[in-house]
């Protein structure tokens, strides 16, 4: 007999434990980013960082549809993608602080986390800069007879970069297993996307022969469902897809972007945070489905927060690379 909170119960075609994993991942991303903000505020982090808070359902819903050997490419706002693909927070924080224990030995920082073990081809600080890399990885998978799929994450700002269309055309021609995921969080830095984006976003995939779908990026279940379908299709050799996830970043373009009223209203921010929060809404659905309880979810959050704090402590205590590292790794 299954109890109400039986973790093997299947809801909407997915086992409870898997929904719970997604929940934990989303919380992990949010808590991770809160700590990043804290590190910035405490002046412990060199440089800046672009937080993923508000967009958690996108990375988690999509990476849940991926295997470990599948690839992703990420962006300047990349912490969520990296964590969702399986990166460990301690090595990520270490990277953000420029420490040797970081994923890139401190050489990459927030915008360049990369990790072969989890198929992370690297975050990228050039808007649209990873579209070619992702498409090339898909070509390699196909040519090498592997059925891995590559996901290319990018913000809607990257729709301004021509290279995206060059590679979508190629992916369609060669039927490559790559999913282009446009995270439309409404802003290119401090400019609303409607001022920078003519026509219809979905049409921009279709015009290059790439099937395109819109999805509510605040609904992890919807994101996962679409991602699974498109990833499966790609894995079977049916070619690329373009997925537009409508979402919102709750905080500034980067941690230092505090006064935002000249480009967006507090009211707009408030609405997304209260009515469309991906974590809250997912929690409400899960408890409504009765395979978990609010208390359990609260516990998860506590656990995750403690984990993040420990990871931060690890990173703070970790040593910097020695200066002689500076000219290592230029050439393989």
């Amino acid at each position: 007999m299954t109890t109400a909170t039986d973790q093997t119960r299947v809801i909407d075609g997915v086992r409870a434990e898997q929904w719970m994993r997604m929940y934990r991942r989303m919380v992990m991303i949010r808590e991770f980013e809160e700590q990043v903000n804290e590190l910035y505020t405490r002046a412990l982090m060199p440089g800046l960082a672009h937080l993923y808070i508000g967009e958690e359902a996108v990375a988690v819903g999509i990476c849940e549809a991926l295997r470990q050997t599948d690839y992703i490419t990420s962006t300047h706002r990349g912490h969520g993608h990296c964590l969702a693909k399986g990166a460990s927070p301690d090595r990520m924080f270490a990277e953000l602080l420029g420490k040797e224990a970081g994923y890139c030995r401190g050489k990459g920082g927030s915008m360049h986390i990369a990790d072969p073990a989890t198929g992370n081809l690297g975050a990228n600080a050039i808007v649209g800069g990873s579209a070619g890399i992702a498409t090339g990885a898909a070509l390699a998978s196909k040519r090498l007879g592997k059925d891995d799929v590559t996901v290319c994450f990018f913000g809607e700002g990257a729709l301004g970069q021509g290279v995206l269309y060059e590679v979508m055309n190629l992916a369609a021609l060669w039927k490559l297993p790559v999913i282009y995921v446009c995270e439309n969080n409404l802003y290119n830095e401090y400019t609303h996307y409607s001022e920078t984006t003519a026509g219809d976003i979905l049409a921009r995939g279709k015009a290059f022969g790439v099937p395109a779908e819109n999805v509510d990026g605040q609904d992890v279940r919807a994101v996962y469902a679409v991602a699974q379908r498109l990833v499966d299709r790609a894995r079977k050799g049916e070619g690329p897809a373009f997925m537009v996830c409508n979402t919102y970043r709750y905080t500034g373009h980067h941690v230092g972007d505090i006064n935002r009223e000249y480009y967006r209203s507090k009211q707009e921010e408030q609405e997304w945070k209260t009515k469309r929060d991906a974590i809250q809404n997912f929690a409400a659905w899960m408890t409504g489905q009765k395979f978990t309880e609010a208390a359990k979810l609260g516990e998860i959050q506590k656990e995750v927060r403690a984990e993040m704090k420990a990871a931060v402590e690890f990173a703070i205590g970790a040593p910097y690379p020695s200066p002689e590292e500076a000219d290592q790794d230029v050439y393989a």
Partner: protein
Amino acid sequence: MPEAAERELTFAQAIREALAEEMRRDSRVCIFGEDVAEAGTPFKVLSGLVEEFGRERVLDTPISEAGFTGMGVGAAMTGLRPVVDIMFGDFLTLTMDQLVNQAAKVHYMSGGTWKVPMVLRTTLGAARRSAAQHSQSLHAWVSHVPGLKVAMPSTPRDAKGLLKTAIRDENPVVFFEDKMMYKLKGPVPMGEYTIPFGVADVRREGEDITIVATSSMVQVALGAAEMLEKIGVSAEVIDPRTTWPLDEKTLVESAKKTSRAMVVDEGYGRYGVTGEIASVIAEGAFYSLEAPVKRMGAMHVPIPFSPPLEDMTVPTEQRVFEAARTLCGKA
């Protein structure tokens, strides 16, 4: 000649003032770039311009560096005088075709009939913990290309005067601003002035060694010169201000006088600016030099994020001082 009245401005304010004055003077001058209007760029260099000149003249673009640089070329050919804003010099990579195959060549290829009076403003410099794709100093590339002029001011005064000259020039000019200098303060004359291209500024006179430095490295060289002074070495510090046209004469004459020279530039040391300037000096002052011309550029690595590593990669006062001291045989 009495100095015109002056006041202190930051480098960023000087840039903004040059733009505002030129936009008032000439209605054809306009600005395109990412987040240049209300945001005034992430560096806030352009704050206030859209309020004065409107969105017709300060245009926020999509993130399409190649596209809007190309539009700058076409607009410049047909009657506007665009100032194209490329946020980070690292993104020049995306504009190279428009800049090099189009802007730089239109005048020549058309037998002198079309002109491209466009300015491309961009940044250079590391040390902001921004990692490898937001820290490069790529001015050597454009200095290599005939048809382009290249300015890289080191003070607020020069920034204003050179930018006004750039905007009035009939040719494409690439204008480099060191991100780390935007808050640097310095005297700027009250009245109208411009600074001609191709005229180096001897920032400090000296007898024992010539240090040629560009952009923010001028400040570093001046700091090193103070340190050298203390050990009895008198350094002349020269800022060429434009890498093209290059004031070869002033550099060579100085080296002839001092008999020793060093070149400090934040671009990569190899196949870049230091090689050119060192060669010009080594050739022109050959019979006066008592030691090889010393070059110092950025370490030949992608700029690392980690602070202790990044700090290794850029010339500092201490390193310039040490190299100069060695060059003068005082080590």
